[in-house]
């Protein structure tokens, strides 16, 4: 670890700068797809991470519960500036959207639920179903490898959506069976 070694990673940003960059991403990442905005902001523009670390942190974010956007803020913030970094990055990421949705909650209560806004919201709800199905197809294409995986998907979805099985039970039972199905076999060990 000599100082003269080039190219050295850039010095970690200040907490203020970290907050500002995440605030801008939190305010501009319209229309979902926060991951693309994160990569542009962190890897391309600020060069705080290389693509390899970005993908590594993303795979942690996707494996753990929680939203990708906030999990990424926590992991990137922690890597750059420790615990405080994780906190300010997450606050910056959440502040704009949270303020807007709090305002939406108040407007809805204060007569914003007239027939016209209801018609508009019913329309976007239908559009959002299309969006959810796209996310589903993309997630499935990345995750599902074998026929058994599709069986786990169908069994979980039918149990929850049609038989009203509470999600934690479905998650635990189907999770254990699916993990056991994919269990490490001795022949995999080199």
């Amino acid at each position: 670890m000599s100082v003269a070694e080039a190219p050295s990673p850039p010095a970690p940003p200040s907490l203020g700068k970290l907050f500002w960059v995440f605030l801008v991403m939190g305010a501009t990442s319209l229309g979902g797809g926060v991951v693309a905005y994160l990569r542009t902001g962190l890897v391309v523009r600020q060069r705080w991470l290389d693509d390899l670390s970005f993908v590594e942190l993303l795979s942690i974010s996707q494996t753990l519960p929680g939203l990708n956007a906030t999990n990424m803020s926590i992991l990137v913030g922690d890597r750059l500036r420790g615990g405080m970094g994780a906190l300010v990055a997450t606050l910056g990421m959440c502040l704009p959207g949270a303020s807007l949705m709090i305002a939406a909650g108040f407007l809805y209560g204060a007569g914003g639920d007239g027939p016209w806004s209801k018609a508009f919201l019913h329309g976007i709800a239908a559009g959002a179903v299309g969006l959810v199905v796209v996310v589903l197809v993309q997630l499935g294409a990345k995750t599902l490898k074998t026929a058994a995986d599709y069986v786990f998907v169908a069994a979980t979805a039918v149990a929850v959506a049609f038989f009203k099985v509470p999600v934690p039970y479905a998650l635990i039972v189907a999770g254990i069976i699916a993990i056991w199905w994919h269990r490490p076999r001795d022949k995999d060990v080199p």
Partner: protein
Amino acid sequence: MKQLWDLAGVFAYLSLLTVGGGMAAFPEMKELTVDTYHWLTFPELLHFYSLGQLAPGPNMMMVASIGAVVGHIPGALVALVAFFLPTGLLTFFVGRLWSHLATWRWRPAIQSGLGSVAVGLVLAGAIIMGRGAITEIFFGVIALVVFLLLWRTKINPAYPIVASGLIGMALHYFNIA
């Protein structure tokens, strides 16, 4: 005061179900916020969820709207903290341990196993959401067109979703739906 505790409990619990994305928590969110606590109606939940897809940042900021409906600003803050803190702490600590877990033999099994269950939960969420949102054939057409656009092109999802809202208003104007 009791309502704030209820909000904290419900959203902390929902937080832990968000494997594979916020949609995975949708079935339980409907069950608790609509059927158990009656904080809002199912159409209202759908409206907030869909509006939340238009807001910037993480796509589940609609939990703040539910919090605001139930308990104004304190309610919104309690819902947000409860929804993001449990998984946030988990991510923080597991993130630091990750390099040790990278070579663990069970890690790929857990990743693929939970991955398929997560897709199943998102599918369940989509089915429950579709039941509420697609009440007329026209809304099914809107969903299908948005799906095809987003699947086949690189268009920003905000545009077709806003367009869906405008079409919803047009359907209302012509008394079609």
